[in-house]
């Protein structure tokens, strides 16, 4: 067991953000947290990394758990000069070759001398992932990591996630609101809306009434579209006409 939440509740001020959250993550597992805006997804992540102290409940982490964290977005002040290479070596240094390999693997080779603030959103997201992987994490936390990426970009990103688990053997916990995209890569889905509505395998969750109540018809038709695509490789046009 890498991390375990037992009846975790978080209040910010007087407002209850998370209530009675219980789940655990095993090594090499890929778990997706799904929830509408304001459902407490990011708060849950912040609690897991220790930025927020839970009001009640118990959070247990494996001794010396190494966490790789890829935030939703990262604002870097333009007064702070930072090359990609320097960022990759923060907090601990790696050899030039290790950094170059990590960047190449992330699909952004030869960026190492660029300033971080000059990167595009997609490039920066890949650099963030590459940096998180350099720390050789037990658990990778991805907070809406594909936000700002186009369809192709996010598909590439998730393919890379799958290969990360295969090659590095780390567990992955990610936040997403696109079940249809993550479905194939994830072992388990947790639907969050202040509390855990339902959890289980993606196919089970996407058929459950709780899931439909939470996301309404939009997501449902998108999910159906995705499943449909899964069987027909030439359904490109259909997707365009539906989009």
């Amino acid at each position: 067991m890498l991390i375990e939440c037992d009846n975790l509740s978080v209040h910010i001020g007087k407002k209850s953000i998370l209530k009675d959250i219980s789940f655990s993550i095993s090594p090499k597992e890929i778990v997706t947290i799904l929830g509408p805006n304001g459902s407490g997804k990011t708060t849950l992540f912040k609690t897991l990394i220790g930025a927020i102290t839970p009001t009640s409940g118990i959070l247990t982490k494996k001794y010396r758990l190494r966490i790789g964290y890829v935030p939703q977005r990262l604002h870097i002040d333009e007064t702070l000069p930072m090359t990609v290479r320097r960022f990759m070596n923060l907090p601990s240094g790696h050899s030039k070759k290790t950094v170059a390999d990590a960047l190449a693997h992330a699909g952004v080779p030869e960026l190492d001398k660029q300033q971080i603030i000059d990167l595009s959103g997609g490039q920066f997201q890949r650099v963030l992932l590459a940096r998180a992987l350099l720390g050789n994490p037990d658990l990778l936390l991805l907070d809406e990591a594909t936000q700002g990426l186009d369809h192709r970009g996010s598909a590439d990103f998730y393919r890379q996630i799958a290969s990360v688990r295969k090659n590095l053997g780390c567990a992955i916990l990610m936040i997403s609101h696109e079940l249809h995209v993550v479905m194939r890569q994830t072992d388990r889905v947790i639907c969050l809306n202040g509390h855990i509505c339902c959890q289980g395998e993606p196919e089970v969750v996407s058929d459950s009434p709780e899931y439909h109540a939470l996301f309404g018809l939009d997501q449902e038709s998108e999910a159906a579209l995705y499943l449909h695509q899964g069987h027909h490789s030439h359904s490109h046009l259909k997707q365009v006409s539906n989009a």
Partner: protein
Amino acid sequence: MLDDFLVRAMLASVGVALAAAPLGCFVIWRRMAYFGDATAHAAVLGVALSLAFSLPIFVGVLAMCLIMAITVSSLSGRGFAMDTLLGVMAHSSLAIGLVAVSFLSGVRIDLMSYLFGDILAVGKSDLLLIWGGAATVLFLIIWRWSGLLLSTLNADLALASGFKPKQEQMILTIALAIVVAVAIKVVGVLLIAAMLIVPAATARAFSQTPETMAIVAAGIGAFCGLAGLQSSYYFDTPTGPTIVCVCALLFVITTIVARAYRVLTTGEKV
């Protein structure tokens, strides 16, 4: 050699610059400029308290700056915007300090020397204090460098890597209080913020990484200290303000040159 007041002044200005400039980089990166200003203003109250209780100036100023910095840190995020809070605290403590000094009958103090510094009157013990303080600040910054940098970049990234951003913030706060307390003799309360910010801002144009920015800033600060001292000797002007004028001049020149260089090389619009 140390018997010459000019040599002592040179060493004092270099000492302050070496500590203030790298710390100033963090002040800029974290957008704490006003925070530094407020801490410096509180120093006047510290001077008044030291005189009232016959304490060494350094002790009173350090204590007051720490109290100020910790109060602001803990009050922020409790219903007041940071800039409002700092505006209230900074100017109130300056005013209270000035009023408190006027109550101290029987003590003749030259208020101007605390507001604008009196570098030519730096003694051997002051020099020891300045270099001791500067070494402490540099040690703190170098020792905690990775944690400070990562916390500055993003608190959550730092937490995930096992650092404690609040602790790093506290280290910066303490370093800031030490710099103010040792720099009061050199540039005075009102101009300390300039020694923190202007060399670091100047260094930004030449820097690709945070480390080069901190080192270049220290170099620029030390150069401005020496050049300012020479200029004030030559033009017979007050030393602290002259040092800051040199810093400002260098900032303006490098900003224009860097801008012109970019326009010429990349064809960017002016």
